């Protein structure tokens, strides 16, 4: 540790990527990956609060058993729009487009992503998709559920299915371009000495995520296009009356949408790997296993989609295969959890805000993952399918997993992003409030679902009220908890303590440049001759010294 503290980063310069240029045009036409990351950060935060408002409406409606706040048709639209906004416009771009965009080049020692213009284009495409979707929501909304199941979506729904589908279709290209950029960057732009097995695990997880983005997103894009063709032109693809097969839609939709869960959670796992290693000040236990488990999740994640179809007319034999494969995907996930836990063992843990989120992630993701096995079992799924058990399960993965990682990462790299420290006390308080609020919201839903409360209804039998009151109370705490970081992070941009280059005293490349970084990230191309997470004991002082000398002589 002393070695790292002894390391002196390049002298802080007043010019950085934020103040290098001024004016709206300098932001809207920027090709700097860090500025584009901030554009994404603002955009996804906007969509997050829109999605959050829909969540608020759902929880308020479900406070009482009667459908007394929203009509059933309105409620259908509200939960659909909550899902669409949160999944396509917040969770999928959340970590890759913000933290990934900011950090992938910095962590590998590059000046920018491989295709800076394509990177900016991806943000514009994202915004175009967002505008189309918002138009669809304002024009009348969509009531199909975020899954767009046929034949309801193609034949019976009177809502704005095609417009919403178009928004998602367009948005998909943004995701593909981001994935493409990451893969090419990681392959071709690593700094000298940054070998594959010296890459931070954040990079490995983004590489795996990018594979899913590129290989899966085109399939859902084509599926939505086929849906629109059938709805508009009555081409028979999914509607049995026209010679189609509605289950085909579910196959195509989930071929992307199950791996999409890993698009959300894999980057979060990358963040957590960073946090666990760095706040334990210990090399990650089983680096290669954690790295390859990301790739294994990306591959296995494509083989399990049929578990969403267990209660349809899908063949029972296909069901058996999908059930087996779904159990298999638990293995690489478990490898990660065990390795993180092993890393913590006998380490020097500091409980700063990012670490609280990381520890929260491990617990919540484990609950989400284990309850997923209930749903991967053919028999129990028949009982649990379309109940609140499913809702609780995937929120434990998407919020307990993806969102916790996102918040942990945002706090961890905030000093680098903004050049300011966030208030640590408030940070820990908010992390605690969010953790409590989250569990109070979703834990009761497991019980309600197991007892038979179905999802997607605005009214329910009175015996389920106690669980829903608990859940709404939890959601209020969670919503309050989410506002706290929103407020203090904005506050810290102006009033926060100035951050030094390496406030956590860590070996990663992103910490070896000033905070905020200059537009080119590094004054000189770094030469890497240390391993990932090499917390230098005194005898390794030379490693850091070599790095400094390279900088001086370059």
């Amino acid at each position, binding site marked *: 540790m002393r070695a790292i503290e002894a390391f002196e980063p390049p002298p802080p310069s007043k010019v950085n990527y934020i103040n290098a240029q001024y004016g709206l045009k300098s932001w809207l036409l920027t090709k700097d990956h860090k500025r584009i990351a901030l554009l994404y950060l603002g955009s996804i935060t906007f969509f997050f609060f829109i999605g959050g408002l829909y969540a608020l409406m759902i929880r308020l409606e479900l406070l009482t058993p009667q459908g007394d706040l929203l009509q059933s048709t309105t409620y259908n639209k509200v939960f659909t729009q909550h899902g669409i906004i949160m999944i396509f416009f917040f969770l999928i771009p959340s970590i890759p487009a913000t933290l990934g965009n900011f950090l992938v080049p910095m962590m590998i020692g590059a000046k920018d992503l491989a295709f800076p213009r394509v990177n900016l284009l991806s943000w514009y495409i994202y915004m175009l998709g967002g505008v189309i979707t918002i138009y669809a929501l304002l024009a009348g909304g969509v009531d199909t559920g975020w899954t767009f199941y046929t034949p309801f979506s193609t034949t019976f729904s009177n809502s704005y299915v095609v417009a919403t589908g178009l928004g998602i279709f367009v948005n998909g290209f943004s995701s593909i371009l981001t994935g493409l950029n990451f893969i090419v960057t990681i392959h071709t732009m690593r700094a000298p000495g940054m070998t594959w097995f010296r890459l931070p695990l954040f990079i490995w997880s983004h590489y795996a995520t990018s594979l899913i983005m590129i290989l899966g997103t085109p399939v859902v894009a084509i599926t939505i296009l086929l849906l629109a063709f059938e709805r508009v032109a009555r081409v028979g693809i999914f509607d049995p009356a026209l010679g189609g097969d509605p289950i085909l839609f579910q*196959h*195509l939709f989930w071929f992307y949408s199950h791996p999409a869960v890993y698009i959300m959670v894999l980057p979060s796992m990358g963040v957590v790997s960073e946090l666990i290693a760095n706040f334990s000040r210990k090399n990650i236990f089983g680096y290669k296993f954690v790295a390859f488990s990301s790739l294994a999740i990306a591959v296995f994640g494509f*083989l399990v*989609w049929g578990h969403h*179809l267990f209660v349809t007319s*899908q*063949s029972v034999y296909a069901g058996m295969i999908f059930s087996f494969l779904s159990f298999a995907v638990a293995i690489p996930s478990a490898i990660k959890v065990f390795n993180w836990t092993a890393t913590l063992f006998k380490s020097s843990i500091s409980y700063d805000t990012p670490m609280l989120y990381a520890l929260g992630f491990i617990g919540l993701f484990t609950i989400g993952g284990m309850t997923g096995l209930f749903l991967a079992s053919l028999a129990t799924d028949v009982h649990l399918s379309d109940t609140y058990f499913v809702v609780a399960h995937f929120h434990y993965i998407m919020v307990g997993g993806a969102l916790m990682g996102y918040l942990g990462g945002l706090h961890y790299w905030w000093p680098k992003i903004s050049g300011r420290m966030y208030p640590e006390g408030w940070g820990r308080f908010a992390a605690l409030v969010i953790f409590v609020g989250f569990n109070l919201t979703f834990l009761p839903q497991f019980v309600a679902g197991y007892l038979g409360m179905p999802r997607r209804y605005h009214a329910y039998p009175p015996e389920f009220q106690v669980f829903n009151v608990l859940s709404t109370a939890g959601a209020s705490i969670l919503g309050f908890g989410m506002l706290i970081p929103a407020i203090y992070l904005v506050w810290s941009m102006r009033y926060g303590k100035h951050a030094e280059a390496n406030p956590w005293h860590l070996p990663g490349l992103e910490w070896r440049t000033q905070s905020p970084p200059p537009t080119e990230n590094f004054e000189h191309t770094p030469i890497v001759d240390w391993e990932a997470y090499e917390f230098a004991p005194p005898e390794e002082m030379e490693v850091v010294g070599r790095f400094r000398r390279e900088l001086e002589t370059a």
Partner: protein
Amino acid sequence: MSEHIVPVKVYITIFLVLLAGTLLTVLAAFHDFTYHLGSRTFALNTPIALAIAVTKATFVVLYFMHVRYSTRLVWVIVTSALFWLVILFALTFADYWTRGWFSIGW
């Protein structure tokens, strides 16, 4: 990576091949390729249309997208994309082809 210059003649030839493929697809659509062999019926219109489409796509990928002249890494990436297509088809057909096997309920 050195850039391979493809002669314009090659592009024009491939373009003509694609046009011919389109013409062939249209002509094939007007012909009924249903055959009966014993008690079994083979409706071949869709497989024929797909075969022409795949052939055309192969030309596009190899020449217009320059994959033929690209590095092995690009070949690996193209092959993995095709492999993913195989996953999509294989597991979907694992459902379709076994639906009739289990006749009680389901």
